[in-house]
């Protein structure tokens, strides 16, 4: 066999060695053979238990995890963007006070009152007309 690369037949030593070895293998006692068989079965079973599961077998777990993650993201998103809801009277914020200031600071407020007084006759006529009396 050593001369295999040279194209020659194996030597007598090689043949004899191989024959002796194979004979010793054949004469392995039954107890050892039984132990080897048990060892083989144990190895295959252990390998089967630790074999990584195919990706499609892990899908139910992946689906559950993805569902939980999506629900969490949705909840956080809604919470972050929800409009503020207030119950009870609106607060007197700065904008309302600004409006009052504008009205109070108006220079021609007196003119408006006088204009209303000038039209008192008109308002009296309008009231009579709505009450069903014909206009004069």
């Amino acid at each position: 066999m050593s001369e295999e690369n040279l194209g020659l037949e194996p030597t007598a030593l090689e043949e004899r060695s191989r024959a002796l070895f194979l004979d010793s293998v054949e004469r392995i006692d039954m107890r050892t053979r039984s132990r080897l068989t048990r060892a083989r079965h144990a190895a295959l079973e252990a390998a089967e238990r630790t074999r990584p599961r195919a990706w499609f077998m892990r899908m139910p777990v992946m689906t559950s995890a993805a569902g939980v993650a999506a629900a969490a993201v949705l909840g956080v998103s809604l919470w972050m963007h929800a409009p503020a809801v207030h119950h009870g009277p609106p607060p007197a914020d700065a904008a309302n006070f600004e409006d009052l200031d504008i009205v109070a600071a108006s220079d021609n407020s007196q003119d408006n009152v006088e204009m209303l007084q000038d039209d008192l006759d008109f308002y009296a006529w309008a009231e009579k007309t709505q009450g069903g009396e014909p206009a004069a």
Partner: protein
Amino acid sequence: MPGFGTLTADWMVADSSAPATRGVVLEQTRALDKFLAEVERRAFRMAQMALRDPDDAMDVVQDTMLKLARNYATRPSEEWRPLFYRILENGVRDLQRRRTVRKRFMTWLPGPKEDPDHEAQDPLESVADNGPAVPDILMQDQAMQKLEASLRELPARQREAFMLRNFEGMDVAETATAMGCSQGSVKTHYSRAVHTLREQLGEVW
């Protein structure tokens, strides 16, 4: 519109690869079982010759089977044999190293120098099965003992090359893969091993 769960369930049902994959896995396990059954006895004898202890040899072979089944079961079956023997040789070498360290440690301790973990050999193990006549067996045993003794004298790499090439019948490329070296190194180791054995044993002993 189907809900999330419904969509997933439909998809799972539509996937028909699961049973086919289970079939492939089953077939693979059977093929591996057949391969291991074919090599286990020769592997055990090789490990026993290197370690000179049947229990240690059994441990190494079992560990080799487990590692091959766990890590390389999905590889093409043509690769199993060189991978198996590579794992086996690594296991043998690791055990020999541990023994050397343990032996050094034991020399510092008082008491008997023998290995305390070594159990008494079961007498049943040495009983041969019914086979050839007793004189023939004795002659074969003596010849085999000489061969084993000579193999133990060889450097580890030469012994590995001789066992894999001659006992297991592996070609140069497979042996190179199993030994983790080049094909040229395999040829060199094997040639030197045969030369040394011939010097020690004669052409036919």
